[in-house]
């Protein structure tokens, strides 16, 4: 039974991860940055699920782990957005490059 090789999934995950990373590093809108991070997490999930199917010890662990990841991602999105809104209320902007309070 010939099927899609593991490499193909990994490659897809890699591409998505890179896109997410690029977005997270270069986009100025904080919301988009958050979304990009979600994309990166998704790419990792693909890897986890793919390894659940193709690996030396296949099993459900990968899938379960991806479920946890999704949960954490959801929590992260919620908190991230809350922080964003709090910040927006104080500084009237969502541009990441205007948030440089770390320097001060």
């Amino acid at each position, binding site marked *: 039974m010939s099927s899609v090789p593991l490499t193909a999934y990994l490659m897809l995950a890699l591409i998505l991860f890179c896109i997410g*990373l690029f977005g*997270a*590093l*270069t986009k100025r809108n904080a919301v988009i*940055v958050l979304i990009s991070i979600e994309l990166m997490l998704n790419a990792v999930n693909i890897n986890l699920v793919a390894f659940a199917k193709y690996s030396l010890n296949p099993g459900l662990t990968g899938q379960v782990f991806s479920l946890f990841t999704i949960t954490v991602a959801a929590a992260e999105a919620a908190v991230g957005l809350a922080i964003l809104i709090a910040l927006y209320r104080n500084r009237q902007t969502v541009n*990441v*490059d205007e*948030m*440089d*309070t*770390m*320097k*001060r």
Partner: protein
Amino acid sequence: MLQMSWLIPLFPLLSFILLVVFRKSSNENTAWIGVLLTGASFVLSFGAWLAVWQGDGIKVEGTWFQLGERAITMGYEVNPLNALMLVIVSLVSLLVHLYSKGYMHGDERFSVFFAYLGLFSFAMLGLVLSPNLLQLYMFWELVGLGSFLLIGFYYFKPEAKAAAKKAFVMTRIGDVGLFIGMVLLFWQVGSFEYDEIFSAIKNGELSQSMLTLTAICIFVGAIGKSGQLPLHTWLPDAMEGPTPVSALIHAATMVAAGVYLVAAMYPLFQASETALTVVAVVGGVTAIFAASIGLMQKDIKRVLAYSTVSQLGYMMLALGASGYVAGIFHLTTHAFFKALLFLAAGSVIHAVHTQNIEEMGGLWKKLNITGPLFLIGALAISGIPLLSGFFSKDEILMSTYADGKYGLFWIAVIAAFMTAFYMFRLFFLVFTGKPRGSQKGVHESPSVMTLPMIVLGVLAVVAGYLNTPWFGTFLTDYLSQGPVELLHADHHGPVWIPFVATAVALLGIGLAYMIYQKGSVSRDWLTRTFPGLSHVIYNKWFVDEGYDRTVVKGTTGLSWLGVWFDKYVIEGLVAGVVSGVQALSRLGSEMQNGQVQSYGTFAIFGLVLLLLIAALSGGYFS
């Protein structure tokens, strides 16, 4: 008497120290300190000479410091050659001290002048007494210091400042040659001692090329000190110093030190035919070269200065042509008649307050002691028979001819003609004819000045009889007691040589008479006939200008290059490093911009670099 000869240079040193202490004293009797102490030196020197004349000699040495197993020694030695030099130096020094008492009268720094004279005499006597090359070299430099101080005595005159500097630097160039020669000899022989060097040469411990090299290096020292070509230019400029100084240092003693050096190291030169030839050629060329410049100078002291250069060339020629005795003989006679000429010139200058011969004339009657004395000197230097110059010059010509250097012989003859001509040009222009400048209040110098001149005048006449074919060759016998083996002890050249020399001298005097006294030949006859040549000669063959354009400009150019290099390349490199560090730190602080994304970017960049290194080095992953 000889045991006390170490005191000879110390008297003038004492004089120097005392006079420096009393430098502020306005009492001109301080001069007597110098005169008396130099007199004491002279007495001791004369005693030493007498002792040596009877075949005595002394050499005392002690360790100066220890260099490994070798002891560097210091001491003193009296041998025939340096005993003669001692007498000449201390005598001329004594006479000049005396003369200066009158000449420097009223000078603000009267005592300082005598202090410097004392310092110079100390150095010169020390030089002569040295038993080894190192000690000689040390005094050699100190002599240069004395010369420097005295040339620059009128420190406020820019010309004197330049001349003093030039004298020191030019002789220093020669000194470096001497230094190299001396050090090379030391490593070949293992000692600076004359004796050991000579015995090493005798035993053939040195290769021929090393002999030639060291001899020429040492001769370079002599070139510098004795104003030989091509390092002669400082000597005429040195005339900026007070005239007694010119008489003492730049006529009789220090400039003769070069000749003395070659004579003292004569066995070394004898061992190398090439070196001797170099000495002879340099001497011969200098003789005619300087004489030609002397023909057209207008400054009374400069004429004499070029004459000195020329006569020193004669001495070198003699030494180079194996005429050891002839060279020393001429040194002796020249010391007296040239010192006489300078002192007489000083007396003239003292009277008319100018050095330009165009502004003199008709002084014979007003200066009725100086005039005849100057005439004696001029006759002596021209080589008129029965005066000292005749015998010594004759001897030089003889030995040159006997040595087979015919080209140099004829050069010397022509130079003799020129000598006679320019000396009498000087004499006629200064003492005869009509006064050309204002000569108010011209009077003969005081007796304190004329007395030394009279002594020298007598010596200029009689010194020649030290070594004559008629009365006896006292000097030859005397010098042959020394360490130098006289190869051709007596040069019996052709009999016609004295006649040629006399004829040439008379011809020169006659021509000078025709031009400057009778006026039967126009004065600018030469200038008109050979305009190019005379222009070149008048400007001293453009040697100074040539040096200025090449060596001086070259050195300053190099210096500017160095400054440029220092400022732009080295400082630039430093500035480059500094700005590099600054740029790096600025970059670092800009990276710290407080934006999370930037930090993330750099973190990723670093991670990727690490991964790249790991991947390329085949590290963790493979």
